[in-house]
């Protein structure tokens, strides 16, 4: 799998300046030994994120998206985790790094925003104290200086009357405010990489939009890289420069966001797109759920992990899908688009079968476009 190590650094986005991306994950495997066997949470995962860039990681629950990101912070207890491969943050290898080194990295270079701020913030400490604490871990400053910094950050993330709200407890904040406070806490040390683990899942849509806007503003301001973990393709479309689709602990499709969302070539990604309601689409457009259940990570399916649920399996010759794991190979249409699928011509299937199902108007337009092109 060494072909796909640097697929993001060459994506040519204008904000990419570093030659070596800030985060390089290479052949990462995360496995948890349990009584029932080895849980293969993440297998052979490779990706990279540069400063100022946003990588969206999509997938169902249990697809390994959170597990892989938590490994970047070394949040898995070493006794019960088997980590393999390499994670380089700012050029430093952190797989197998000493706890002291990890501690310096956590919250300073790499910070994390968790999904549910109510449970992720300590219920017994004030917002201000928790933010100050995060600041003082990495800065040798007095309590009052840290407090000043906390007020500044709360103000920056748009909490009104930050000076008085700083002494509130998390439960006294609304959901959106708590998430803002969480973001303030994550950004207090100007991290170079921000991992946002479903930061808007617990929020209602209007607040969700505000939070995403805020993250984008802050990203511009601090020039941090962002890993946006989500199962919401809407969030991906709005935020991400690149997308990584995960299934059963593996990367199954990856590339620039626009490419992936408009020309997906992996049946699982099609399934994800089909199950998103599109308000601009015709009311006739169907929502098609992906049949079946997520794969067992204890006994992963043979061959392609998606084959038990794949409705396009019969288009692949022989028993390739059930016997052989497809490689993550570049798409024919675009060099920085990779997918893990045996289908010989996925782009044709997408245009002819999937698109008419999920967005008939768009499909007609494309077909019409093709015909126009043909006449010219």
């Amino acid at each position: 799998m060494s072909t796909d190590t640097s697929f993001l650094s060459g994506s040519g986005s204008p904000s990419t300046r570093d030659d070596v991306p800030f985060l390089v994950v290479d052949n990462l495997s995360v496995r948890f030994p349990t009584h029932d066997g080895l849980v293969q949470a993440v297998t052979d995962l490779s990706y990279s994120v540069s400063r100022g860039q946003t990588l969206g990681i999509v997938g169902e629950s249990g697809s390994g998206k959170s597990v892989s990101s938590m490994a970047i912070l070394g949040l898995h207890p070493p006794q019960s985790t088997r980590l393999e491969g390499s994670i380089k943050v700012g050029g430093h290898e952190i797989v197998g790094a000493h706890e002291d080194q990890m501690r310096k990295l956590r919250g300073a270079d790499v910070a994390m925003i968790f999904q549910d701020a109510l449970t992720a913030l300590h219920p017994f400490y004030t917002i201000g104290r928790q933010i100050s604490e995060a600041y003082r871990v990495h800065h040798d400053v007095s309590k009052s200086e840290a407090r000043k910094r906390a007020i500044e950050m709360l103000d920056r993330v748009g909490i009104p009357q930050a000076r008085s709200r700083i002494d509130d407890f998390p439960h006294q904040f609304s959901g959106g405010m708590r998430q803002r406070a969480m973001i303030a806490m994550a950004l207090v040390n100007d991290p170079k990489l921000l991992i946002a683990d479903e930061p808007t899942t617990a929020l209602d849509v209007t607040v969700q939009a505000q939070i995403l806007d805020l993250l984008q503003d802050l990203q511009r301001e601090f020039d941090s890289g962002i890993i946006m973990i989500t199962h919401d393709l809407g969030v991906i479309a709005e935020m991400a420069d690149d997308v990584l689709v995960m299934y059963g602990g593996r990367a199954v499709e990856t590339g620039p966001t626009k490419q992936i969302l408009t020309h997906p070539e992996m049946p699982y990604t099609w399934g994800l797109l089909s199950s998103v309601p599109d308000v601009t689409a015709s009311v006739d457009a169907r929502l098609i759920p992906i049949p079946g259940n997520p794969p067992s990570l204890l006994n992963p399916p043979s061959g392609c992990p998606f084959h038990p649920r794949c409705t396009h399996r019969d288009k692949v010759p022989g028993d390739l899908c059930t016997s052989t794991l497809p490689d993550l190979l570049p798409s024919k249409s675009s060099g920085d688009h990779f997918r893990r699928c045996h289908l010989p011509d996925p782009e044709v299937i997408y245009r002819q079968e999937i698109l008419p199902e999920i967005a008939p108007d768009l499909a007609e337009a494309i077909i019409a476009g093709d015909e126009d092109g043909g006449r010219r």
Partner: protein
Amino acid sequence: MFGYIVRRLFSAALVVILISMTVFAFFFLVPKDPARPLCNLNGRCNEEKLALLTEEMGFNDSVVHQYGIWAKGLFVDRTISFGPKYKCSAPCLGISYSTRTEVTEDLKTKFPATLSIAIGASIIFLPLGVFLGVIAARNRGTFIDRGLVSFSILLYSIPFFVVALVAWIFFSLTWQIFPDTTYVPFTQNPATWFWHMLLPWLVLGLTNSTAYARYTRGQMIETFGEDYVRTATAKGLHSRTVMLRHALRAAIVPIITIFGLDFAYLLTGTLTLEWIFGIDGIGRWSIEALRQPIDFPVVAATVLVAAVIIVLANLVVDIVYSVIDPRVRLV
């Protein structure tokens, strides 16, 4: 908060009154001749003497009337006569049938002994138990954890009186390290008080600490799984800080609650301990009062004191809870 406390005190008073009524009714309704035991105590008893004593002690009045007199005695002095007359100054809990002393005075001398035991033992078992629990939780699954848990279950499964008795036999009787474990008031001689109480403290403290070690271990392990503990680690805090300032801070809340009620329970008398170490405390007092003839005034007093302690402890626990958990609001 103030309104809450007032309301709770009001309901607490109600509970105490109801308990005192229940005890009173229970003891007065069951025996046929409540004066007979006393009559027997005063030498030869005959029917005439019994009738006289019954009348004198007011047993011929209705139970409600008797309760009224008893309850009134809590606020004003009264005179009690069973044969001789005894003055009983308020708050009067009656005159002990067996010792002929004012129950309130006995309570004043015996309560400090029990209080000393409860405080001294708590100072040992609460910190020790929590400390061991944290150590076990932190080293979960290792031999340290297994050793601590096994030892704790072992000690816990031995009946307390066996532990206390063995300790007394060896440390007090055989080796004479703590030859005298009777209670000496703190005000009289603090050093003697301390030395006499040390063995009972250690016995009760060590045995009770096993339960606290297991509560703490369980709570800590549960708290380790909380998102906010992961957040604390993700901030870059040292694992020790995460453990103590974040995990333990949350895990300690239910432990404090259990402790509050345990402490109250200790204050109602550490019966076995007092008995074995010869400490003149509430526990021994209340069990001795139950011997025939039943020393009703003492029984009523010990039950009343226990009720007051338990009810107040519950109130204190709730108030403390609201202080240590900012999410709890007392309204």
